């Protein structure tokens, strides 16, 4: 295996601990919360009545979806950023989130019977395919991918805005919550879908960092060492898109988690090396904490979780842009 760095292991341990703490708070705080004393028995199947209902129907699936969606987004972001060698690269920039939004908007207008996740998945897939064919080289050229993605995202926003403006007001409000990314409607199906995708994608993703690190030396050097540059890049982008697509289908286009999670992990561990696991754990932590705030914090209570990640992530993006600018990389 890759010689694992001690700081990375420590970081992962602390992140897991933080996720557990935030999860406990999520389950036990507030009017409907499961009291701490009842939590162990509720978790291990002993409790009945109110606690079981809250755990199995209300907060449990929502919490699990938050963890899984966050992990998928973190994983997706770290793969995408290392392929594009750009800290601003994330599946958002290839129009995946915008495509999902347009998919939901269009299905809710034309086929109201179809569930939102199906619309989101279809939209994300369609946007990704359009980008794939627009570049002329598939996903092999990161620059072309990003530029095509910006164009596709703009078109998708236009479609979404059209639907929002022709729809009835209250339906539009509901749609708006989904479009910014929300866990309010998370259920067991979402847990199942995101869980299965994470189980499949994570092991595949863990095979890539070694080759991707060699690609830093240029394609020719890496190829001389037995790496297939195009295949490695395509595999990374495809996995990244699948992970982000599943996350979007479950929770809508939650902004900035894919962008910030790998950056935070990288800065804390102080390593330029790509860690799939640290980034996934960081993504999970961000989502759980953001959704805890969306459920319990005064002022923001009740808002879709995507509004919170948008606000906090926006600040972080500003900071990142400034520091990249100072380093002369932008």
């Amino acid at each position, binding site marked *: *295996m*890759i*010689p694992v760095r001690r700081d990375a292991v420590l970081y992962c341990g602390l992140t897991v601990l933080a996720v557990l703490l935030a999860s406990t708070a999520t389950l036990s705080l507030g009017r409907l919360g499961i009291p701490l004393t009842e939590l162990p028995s509720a978790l291990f199947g002993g409790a009945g009545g109110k606690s079981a209902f809250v755990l199995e129907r209300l907060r449990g699936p929502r919490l699990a979806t938050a963890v899984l969606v966050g992990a998928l987004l973190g994983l997706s972001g770290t793969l995408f950023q290392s392929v594009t060698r750009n800290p601003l690269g994330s599946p958002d920039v290839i129009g995946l989130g915008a495509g999902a939004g347009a998919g939901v908007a269009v299905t809710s207008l034309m086929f109201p019977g179809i569930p939102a996740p199906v619309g989101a998945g279809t939209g994300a897939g369609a946007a990704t395919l359009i980008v794939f064919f627009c570049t002329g080289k598939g996903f092999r050229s990161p620059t072309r991918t990003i530029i095509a993605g910006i164009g596709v995202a703009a078109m998708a926003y236009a479609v979404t805005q059209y639907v929002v403006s022709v729809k009835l007001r209250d339906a539009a409000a509901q749609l708006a919550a989904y479009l910014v990314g929300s866990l309010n409607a998370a259920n067991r199906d979402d847990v199942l879908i995101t869980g299965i995708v994470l189980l499949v994608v994570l092991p595949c993703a863990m*095979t890539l960092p*070694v080759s991707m*690190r*060699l690609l*830093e*030396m*240029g*394609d*020719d*050097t890496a*190829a*001389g*060492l*037995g*790496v*297939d540059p195009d295949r490695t890049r395509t595999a990374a982008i495809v996995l990244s898109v699948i992970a982000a697509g599943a996350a979007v289908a479950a929770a809508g286009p939650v902004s900035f988690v894919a962008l910030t999670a790998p950056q935070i992990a990288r800065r804390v561990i102080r*390593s*330029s090396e790509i860690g799939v696991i640290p980034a996934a754990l960081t993504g999970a932590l961000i989502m759980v904490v953001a959704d805890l705030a969306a459920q319990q914090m005064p002022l923001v209570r009740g808002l879709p979780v995507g509004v919170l990640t948008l606000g906090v992530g926006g600040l972080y993006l500003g900071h990142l842009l400034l520091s990249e600018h100072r380093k002369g990389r932008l």
Partner: protein
Amino acid sequence: MSLSLENVTLGYDGTVVASGLDFVVPEGEFTAVIGPNGCGKSTLLKALARVLRPSAGRVLLDGDDLRSLRPPAVARRVASLPQHPIAPESLRVRDLVARGRHPYHSLWRQWLPGDAAIVDAAMVATGITDLADRLLTDLSGGQRQRVWIAMVLAQQTNYVLLDEPTSFLDLAHQVELLHLCQDMRADGRTVLTVLHDINQAARYASHLVVLDRGTVVASGEPAEVLTTELLADVFGVDGVIGTDPESRTPMVTVRARVHPGGLVRP
């Protein structure tokens, strides 16, 4: 053992650099490839190293089509260093040299028992042992070049392909590197390098290959290959071929350029 091109067409996105090219890497020699800028020297090396895929024809390694072999299997037999490798940030010299062991690793084994000794030996051979813990980005161009060579050495391949390995080196280190190539040959490896300096090529290499506009126009011992006609035709200079007083190898002195006013060729 053999490495050869069989009737290959090489190029980039539509532009053809060479077509119908046949070439056999001279086995057991230290070969220098020379030729004017843009004639396809780097392209030839890339095709031999499975870095560039020919649009027609085959590259054969011990009789197998390079395309039918898995990339790590090729990298265990053919090492190549491009003209402009990129130095990753925050990477230490020793870790870079260790990357030469990558073709021997698998997903589950990223380090093998013999690796440390092989990496150390490669650093000794290139004289960079003292730099082991320095960051690659803090080194001079010449030091960095030796680190890249060490990485290629650690790959322990039969074929070593180097694209202009002397370009950033001062004279002493150029000579050092050329001796290193000779040592590799003495070790039984086959070395193929692109060199710019014809006199150095003639003096240190055992074999010369002259490339012009994607075709091999001459190949053989330096003394046979270098002629005044070749200098005029390929390099566009009116040259005199004397003898190196030290090594008794051919030595080119330029008298004038053949085409005053620019390199105009049919």
